[in-house]
């Protein structure tokens, strides 16, 4: 059964079409990497999956719930889908602990103690238990992003969305975040990741999707993608990215 089903999705900003007829899926337990040049619509696509962006055409179904249905409670659905952003987006006016617990308490209705225990477990998991009382501004970028991942995990999500989680990081901090993501992937978390980190894709991805100009031009298993990319644009993109 697919966890995320994307069917014939098109989206416009005014007259400008950002997504054209996109269709794909992410199965439960699968890790799918979405890549492509900047402006190709990959971030927009992943933001549509939990309804942060509305779509004008097509259908997106997450865990059996269609997003566009008027009866769908978007907030409820989003509470089940974890998301990690390029710029971390920790809440700067709250301590790390409060960042970890606020949504558990206010959205899931957990008790403060339960939320705290869960939050600290996840914080420990990303290796930052010592930072619990600090404020986000006192942490490095890599640490902030790991806290952001812990915050999402504390909600016990059924799948995780990553929107370029390492592209705002200084190079020396990229790996500490990727390590956490690799660990998650090997544990069987369902993941959809927009990223340029091809090393990560090679290591843990099941499938790779390549986007260009708002279209999905290649959707292949990892081995096929890196071995024999069919689309010319994907070949060009890969050769550029793998040069370094």
């Amino acid at each position, binding site marked *: 059964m697919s966890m995320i089903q994307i069917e014939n999705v098109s989206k416009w900003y005014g007259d400008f079409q950002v997504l054209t007829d996109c269709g794909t899926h992410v199965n439960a337990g699968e890790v799918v990497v979405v890549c492509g040049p900047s402006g190709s619509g990959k971030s927009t696509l992943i933001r549509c999956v939990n*309804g942060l962006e509305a779509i004008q055409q097509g259908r997106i179904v997450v865990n059996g719930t269609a997003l566009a249905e008027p009866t769908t409670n978007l907030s409820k659905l989003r*509470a089940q889908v974890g*998301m990690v*952003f390029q710029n971390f*987006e920790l*809440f*700067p*006016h709250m301590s790390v602990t409060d960042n970890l617990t606020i949504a558990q308490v206010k959205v899931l209705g957990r008790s403060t103690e339960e939320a705290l225990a869960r939050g600290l477990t996840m914080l420990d998991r990303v290796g930052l238990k010592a930072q619990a009382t600090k404020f986000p501004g006192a942490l490095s970028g890599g640490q902030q992003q790991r806290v952001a991942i812990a915050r*999402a995990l504390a909600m016990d999500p059924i799948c995780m969305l990553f929107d370029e989680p390492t592209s705002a990081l200084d190079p020396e901090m990229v790996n500490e975040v990727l390590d956490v993501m690799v660990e998650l992937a090997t544990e069987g978390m369902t993941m959809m990741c927009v990223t340029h980190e091809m090393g990560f894709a090679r290591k843990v991805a099941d499938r790779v999707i390549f986007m260009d100009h708002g279209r999905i031009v290649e959707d292949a298993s990892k081995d096929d993608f890196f071995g024999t990319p069919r689309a010319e644009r994907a070949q060009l993109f890969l050769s550029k990215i793998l040069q370094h």
Partner: protein
Amino acid sequence: MDTFDWTSIPGALPILADGMLITLEITATAMLVGILWGTVLALARLSGNRPLAWLAAAYVNLFRAVPLVMVILWFYLIVPTLLQRWLGVSQSSDIRMISALVAFALFESAYYAEIIRAGVQSVPKGQVDAAFALGMPYPLTMRLVVLPQAFRNMLPLLLTQAIILFQDTSLVYVIGLADFFGAAYKVGDRDGRLVELLLFAGAVYFILCFGASLLVRQLQKKYST
């Protein structure tokens, strides 16, 4: 040039203190109501609901286009009539005060609404996305994530507006309410010492407002680091 004669001031201090109480009461009420109602107006203006946003914009723009003196006069015309019709309250001496409180509260709301709107817009869009992604509905997102950050960012502006408001309360003079300035004027007129009382009132306002603005600046420095 006459020499100054400050002797009427010490005896008038109780009257002046009463006046200052009225000034502070109007300032505090207008600030409190202004921030609450102003927040509602700001959120309405930023909401996706077109008619609601338009109504809030019309309210804010109308109040910002009209001089405060006219607003005070308007409410001194409307409030007594309404009080009489709805509550059967007779024209008592308190009616000036009630009119002034209503006028200032509604007027300041328009100014606070603009400050708060800018404050809300100063919070990065990604913060809203993150709150949404955690499953928070719009009201919770505003209350827990956006407004706390917005208010923190705009605290100096809100306080500066309060200082302006404190000065503007002197305009209740036009409906004959004895706030601090009104009291000073009355005493000066009574004793034939208008020059001294006006200079005294000016000095008091200056010391209070300048002191407060220094505090705000200090606060700003502390927050900006």
